[in-house]
C-alpha cells in the first residue's frame, strides 16, 4: 500500500516538475506517465488496485497540475476507468513479462485515456487541445516513445510492486 502511495506521489511530482521545467516546450512532448502507470498497475495488481490508484493519482494530478482541459475532477475519472479496465481485461490473463503485451497495453491505455479525456472535456470544458491539429504529430510521437519505453517502465514497476519475502534472519 505504501509503495502504491509513494509511486502515485513520485509519478505526479515527476510530471509536475517536467511541466514546470518547460519540458512541453520541446516539441510539445508531454509523456503521460501516470496514464501508463495506471495501465500497468491494473494489469499487475487487478481492477480494484487499478481503480484505487487511478482515482488517487488523478485527484493528486488535478490538484497539482493545470491540465489541458482546465476542469477539475475529470482526470481521476479517466484514470480510474483505465485502471479498472486494464485490471479487468488483462490481470491474470496475459503474460505481463512479455514486452509485446506491455507495449500493446500502453498503446491501448494511452489511446483510451485520451479518447475518454476528450469526451469528458467536450462535455465540461470545451475541446481537448491535445486533439487539435498542431498537437496531433507530437501526440503520435509521444505515444510511439511511450510504447517503446513500455518494457522498461513495466520492468521498473514490477520491481517496485513485487511482493517482498518475509525476513527470516540471516543464514550462515
Amino acid at each position, binding site marked *: 500500500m505504501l509503495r502504491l502511495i509513494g509511486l502515485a506521489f513520485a509519478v505526479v511530482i515527476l510530471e509536475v516538475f517536467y511541466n*514546470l521545467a518547460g519540458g512541453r516546450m520541446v516539441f510539445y512532448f508531454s509523456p503521460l506517465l501516470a496514464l501508463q502507470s495506471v495501465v500497468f498497475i491494473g494489469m499487475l495488481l487487478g*481492477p*480494484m488496485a487499478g*481503480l484505487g490508484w487511478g*482515482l488517487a493519482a488523478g485527484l493528486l494530478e*488535478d*490538484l*497539482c*497540475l*493545470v491540465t489541458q482541459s*482546465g*476542469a*477539475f*475532477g*475529470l482526470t*481521476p*475519472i479517466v484514470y*480510474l*476507468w483505465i485502471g*479498472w479496465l486494464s485490471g*479487468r481485461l488483462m490481470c491474470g490473463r496475459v503474460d505481463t513479462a512479455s514486452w509485446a503485451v506491455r507495449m500493446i497495453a500502453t498503446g491501448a491505455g494511452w489511446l483510451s485515456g485520451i479518447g475518454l479525456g476528450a469526451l*469528458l472535456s467536450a462535455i*465540461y470544458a470545451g475541446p481537448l487541445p491535445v486533439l487539435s491539429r498542431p498537437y496531433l504529430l507530437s501526440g503520435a510521437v509521444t505515444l510511439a516513445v511511450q510504447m517503446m519505453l513500455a518494457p522498461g517502465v513495466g520492468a521498473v514497476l514490477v520491481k517496485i510492486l513485487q511482493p517482498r519475502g518475509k525476513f527470516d534472519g540471516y543464514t550462515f
Partner: protein
Amino acid sequence: MKKDFYLALGLTVFLMILAGSSLAGRLAAWRAVAWYLVNPAPTAMAQAQRHAYHLGESWEKLFEARRYLDTLEKIQAGRDLENLRQSLAIEEDSRRRTIEAESQKTVAGSLADKWQTQVVEIVYRGIGESDWVSQACVSKQPAAFKFYAPALQFYRPRGEFILAGRLRPEPAGQFFYQCFELVTSPRHAAAVILATTGEAALLAGLGRPDRLRLSYLPLDSKAAVGERVMTSAASSVYPPGLAVGEIVEIEPLRSSQLFKTAYVRPYLDLARLERLVVLKPEEF
C-alpha cells in the same frame, strides 16, 4: 465484477457532479493561481485569468490589472529596444563620419602624393598585457597589405597623424587577421630624427605603453626634454616626417658610454586605438 464496476460507476457519478459544481470551479481557480505564482509565464497567467471569475470580482479585476501592467511593460520594452536600435544607428553613423573625415584628411595631406591610404578597424588586440601593448590586428582585407606596410593613428589633440606601427610578417596558420607591430612593442625599432636638432637615433619599444628608448644619440646631443621625435628618411619602412612622440627623460651620461640614451613618450594612444590608417605604396 459487479462490485468494483458499481464502485467505479459511483465514483464517476460523484466526480462528474463535483466537476460540474462551483467547488470544482473554485478549486481549479486556486490551482491556476498557485500555478501562476510558481511559474509566472504568459500561459499560466491566461489560465489563472480564465478561472478567476470563480473566486469573485476582485480576483478578476486583479488579473485584469496584472494583464494591463504586463501589456504596458511589453510596450515599454519595445520602446527601449527601438531606442537602443536608434542609438546604435546614430553611433554607427558617427563612426562612419569619423572614418570619412580621417580619410579626407589623409588624402588632403602630404602623404597622398606617394601613398594610397586605407582606414581599417582593429578587431583583435591579443590576449594579455604584452600582446595589448605590442600588436593590433585587423580582419584580412580582400587585397592583403604588403609586409611592413606603415600604419598611423589620428592623434586628436594635435589634429595630425602619428606613427602607430607596421605590418608584421604573417605567422603560419593566421587565417583571419593581419597584425601590426606597434611602436611600443619590444620587437619594434625605427630610425628617427629629432625635430629641432635633426640628430638621428634609433627608437625601440620597451613593451610599455608610455615609454620608448631612444638610443645612439651623439654624445654632444642638444636633445632636451619635450623635444619632438619624428621618423627619419633613413628608415626603410616609414615615410619621413611622421610624429612618433616626445622626449620625457634623458639618461645621465656615464664616462664609459659612447652614445647618449633618452626616453620618449609615444603619441600613440593605446587606449583609443580603434582604427588604423594603413599606407600602401602607389603602384607604378
